């Protein structure tokens, strides 16, 4: 009974999110037409990063902050880069799914050892595994082009009359992926399975003692998140046209981690707010590129030391205060929760 009620509740929230997306979609579709070419490419990269970050947030729900996410995305990128620049090139659409599959397979292989570790220990082992994978991109220059990487990666061939040669067309592809991945992951987050994963993260021993397969529930989000990373890597390679190992370095990994910390990971949209903030920072200080990791680092320190929970908590608190101000009855916490203040 409780399950069915919870499911109905989840469906209701999800429906609201779908309606919200449907309303926002025309705006998002019109957006590139209002922007210069430069800002269009910023928008495309933001959308690709957002996809990757949604996968990352899924991984964090199981309690582990992977540091191999960007290197895993690199597997997708190198898959498409290698196969679409062969003498008899593969179709982009084939490599699109193959790249994601390879990223997922890599995650599944390293899942057994790295998921034996917890917390920051997990962070370390994934950091080492990810960095070793990145070193492979440098070292196996016969396949990956070494430090020079691979260039002349073609844009996806048109389908249904859609041309992906320009930034606007490519943006629609990235946006379509972001919307599909976003809605699927959001529904997953609301589902019983998604909640069980969070329960395992909160207390693994207790979850195991009531018969939950904690092993599977830690592997599943790790692999799913890595598949999403693979998709984002494929798009990145095709959008940029050239890739090299520096595109998957720890600075970019730090950007994702920083987005998740600055935004917070308790809500689905928290990391995206963080990414928006970091990207804005990057564009404001566009002429001072070398300072940017410092600004990100300072933001992370400030959030950890001063604003626990990240921007999402700040926003939630502001919204609550605004609602109380307007006297909206809908948001009163049930029972005597208020009285404790």
């Amino acid at each position: 009974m409780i399950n069915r009620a919870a499911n109905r509740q989840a469906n209701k929230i999800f429906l609201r999110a779908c309606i919200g997306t449907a309303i926002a979609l025309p705006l998002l579709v019109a957006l590139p037409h209002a922007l210069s070419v430069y800002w269009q490419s910023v928008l495309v990269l933001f959308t690709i990063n957002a996809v990757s970050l949604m996968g990352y947030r899924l991984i964090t729900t199981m309690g582990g902050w992977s540091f191999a996410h960007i290197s895993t995305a690199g597997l997708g990128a190198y898959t498409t880069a290698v196969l679409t620049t062969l003498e008899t090139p593969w179709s982009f659409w084939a490599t699109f799914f193959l790249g994601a599959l390879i990223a997922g397979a890599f995650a599944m292989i390293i899942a057994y050892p790295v998921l034996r570790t917890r917390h920051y220990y997990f962070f370390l082992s994934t950091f080492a595994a990810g960095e070793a994978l990145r070193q492979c991109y440098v070292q196996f220059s016969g396949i990956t082009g070494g430090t020079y990487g691979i260039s002349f990666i073609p844009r996806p061939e048109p389908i249904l009359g859609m041309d992906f040669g320009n930034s606007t067309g490519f943006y629609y592809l990235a946006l379509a992926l972001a919307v599909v991945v976003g809605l699927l992951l959001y529904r997953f987050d609301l589902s019983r399975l998604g909640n069980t994963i969070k329960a395992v993260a909160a207390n693994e021993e207790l979850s195991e003692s009531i018969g939950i397969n904690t092993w599977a529930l830690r592997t599943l989000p790790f692999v799913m998140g890595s598949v999403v990373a693979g998709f984002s890597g494929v798009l990145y390679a095709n959008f940029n046209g050239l890739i090299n190992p520096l595109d998957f370095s720890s600075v970019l990994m730090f950007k994702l981690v920083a987005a998740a910390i600055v935004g917070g990971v308790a809500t689905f949209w928290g990391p995206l707010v963080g990414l928006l903030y970091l990207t804005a920072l990057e564009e404001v200080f566009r002429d001072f590129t070398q300072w940017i990791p410092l600004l990100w680092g300072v933001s992370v320190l400030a959030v950890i030391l001063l604003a626990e929970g990240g921007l999402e908590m700040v926003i939630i608190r502001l919204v609550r205060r605004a609602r109380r101000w307007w006297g909206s009855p809908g948001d009163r916490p049930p029972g005597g929760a208020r009285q404790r203040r």
Partner: protein
Amino acid sequence: MQIVANIIFLSTFYVSFAVGLALVFGVMRTINFAHGEFYMFGGYALWMLINAFTGILPPGATFIVALIVGAAVVGILGILVQLSIFHRLREQPFSIFMATLGLSYVLQVAVVKAIGPMGQSVPAPFPGFILFEGMVLPIQRLVVFGFTVVMMGGLYLFLMHTDLGRAVRATAQNRTGAMLQGISMNHIALTTMFVGSALAAISGVLMGSVLIISPFMGGEALWRAFIIIIVGGIGSLSGAVVAAFLFGIIDTLMTTFGAGKFAPMVDAIIMLLVLSFLPSGLLGARE
């Protein structure tokens, strides 16, 4: 025989870098991500002092001054980090970890802006070679090896034969037990951060005399150090030394026999295998 010499040189590098990280982890139960940047500061301390004292002091003497000054300055920096980050976020190891991750980028960019992103190298303070039994032994490398042995010996004496060292070990073994004995956790944390950071700086000065000094040298060394302390068993100093020699042997042999490009992959696979079958590492205590 040259291989043996190379193994020893590479292993001393791994030992000197990883041991400070392992010490801090053992006591604080968290990783100081800025350890790599502290190491980099050691390298720059050597570079700056060599530039400042050329013609005033012999390079060998400058090298020793750099060891002392670098260790002291970075040790104090470690104390500042302890007071501003570790102490404020105590009981939240994950937040400490993320905060030091942020800090490491702050320090890295600070050095890039202050000195420049280009790598620097210093002339060897102790130049020359010794030819011995068909081995070519650069004197600077031997000096680095000697100082690493001295550093490890000093750390051993400190931990095993002083009251403060015993208190540090007691804290690493059992926090509550140590507290019940009247050991001040704040005091131990400050000591550990000072010693751990000073070790990073000493390692940086030593390695700065043979490697290229750049703002990114810490990050490059860090992931190897993570592999070493994971394989050795997190928090175990002896485990870190054993693993450092293990990887010194493996990496040197692979480079010598032309398989150097597989080294990062093989190292990572060894780490993953160790995690699969011995999750607490070679010599780590079960948690």
